[in-house]
């Protein structure tokens, strides 16, 4: 698993980004080295597709460079980069699923029955694969909340800033996400 930046490094991110804004674009290289592995893990769990995840990472840094002047130095860089990551992912999701509502879990429930039959024959490794697939079937909002909390180590309040919603909404997404995963795997 990619190493996460240490707290001190996170504190320096704003300063580095400010330098990027002021014209020293080379500092974006430092930020890339700190975040690209972490972002790749985030996108991989969101998409289950390594090549696509890599493209998404590139897309995030492209946007950070292109829109560098929109960064607010009084905000946290981490919120900004994950906010951009969220938008990059949602753009891809909308492109691939133009008619699908993000909260539409009907498909998930249908798959749930399908997965239910599979479960009878599954062994440990298969369960892992099923979990991987199930994670792709819950709504992107629920998936994002779970991944940012569990793997990126963010607090619900921090995720709420990134997702532009309340902390309680994030908790509800984690709860519903876990319930959906249970439905997909255990019923």
């Amino acid at each position, binding site marked *: 698993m990619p190493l996460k930046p240490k707290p001190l490094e996170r504190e320096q991110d704003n300063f580095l980004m400010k330098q990027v804004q002021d014209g020293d674009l*080379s500092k974006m*290289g430092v930020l*890339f080295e700190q975040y690209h592995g972490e972002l790749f893990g985030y996108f991989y769990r969101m998409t289950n597709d390594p090549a696509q995840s890599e493209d998404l*990472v*590139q897309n995030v840094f492209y946007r950070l460079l292109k829109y560098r002047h929109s960064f607010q130095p009084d905000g946290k860089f981490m919120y900004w980069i994950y906010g951009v990551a969220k938008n990059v992912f949602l753009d891809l999701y909308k492109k691939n699923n133009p008619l699908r509502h993000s909260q539409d879990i009907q498909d998930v429930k249908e798959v749930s029955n399908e997965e239910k039959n599979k479960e009878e024959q599954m062994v440990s490794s298969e369960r*892992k694969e099923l979990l991987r697939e199930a994670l792709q079937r819950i709504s992107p909002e629920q998936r994002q909340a779970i991944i940012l909390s*569990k793997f990126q180590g963010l607090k619900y309040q921090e995720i709420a800033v990134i997702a532009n919603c309340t902390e309680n909404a994030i908790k509800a997404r984690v709860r519903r996400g876990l*319930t959906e995963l249970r439905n997909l795997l255990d019923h």
Partner: protein
Amino acid sequence: MKKNITDLEKVLDLLVEGLENKDFGESDLDRLIRRHPEYADDLRKSWKIWRELDDIEVPEINSLSRERFYQTLNDFQQVANERMPGGKYVHINTVLRWAAIFIIGVGVGLFANSGFFRAGNVDKVSGNGKNQILAQLTAGESASNRMAAIQHIKGLTNPEDQVFEALFTTLVNDPNVNVRLSTIEAMLHFVDNPKSRELLIKAITYQDDPIVQITLAEVIIRLQQEGSVDEIRKLLEMNELDLEVKMHLMETMNL
């Protein structure tokens, strides 16, 4: 016993709040279950899913990812440099530099291959006229007057050393880069004259403008003038020498 959905959600919310803490473990789960034994199964299954998520392995990121990013970064840096106040100047400078080299290159090629200008030995300017032209070259107030004087000089047949010295003075001192470049062109016009070649080489160490530096350097390289390597070595030692010029010279001369 039928479970109350609202209560179940409330209990699961307690679990979710606990999961925010990375140290949440089995003992915390057991404590929660003891408080809400009717939801033990739901809590255990949710907890199990949460832990099993750790089993999803993430592959190594492609090693080309870094290259792709730095290529993008380089593209942004180039655009940013061109937009900076000095950046555009540098870009235009580069274009002019290589344009100047092209012009000089063509000029040297013509001399080397045809001897055309020597064939046209027509003295178009009389003695008095020559003095007037030299005065116009060295003391002309406008750059266009000095350029016109240079064009007249190109019409001279077998000019005396005095003419080359005037051209050299202009090449070293004239504040206008275009005049200095035209002077180089004029001296190349008489490149079969040893005095002209000598002063062209000598002039290089006096130049502070990169365009003129590289143009002169290119002339010397193409003429393969004996002793020119020493002059170029002196040039390379100058702090004022433009980095691009320095690299070009070192590459071309294998220094």
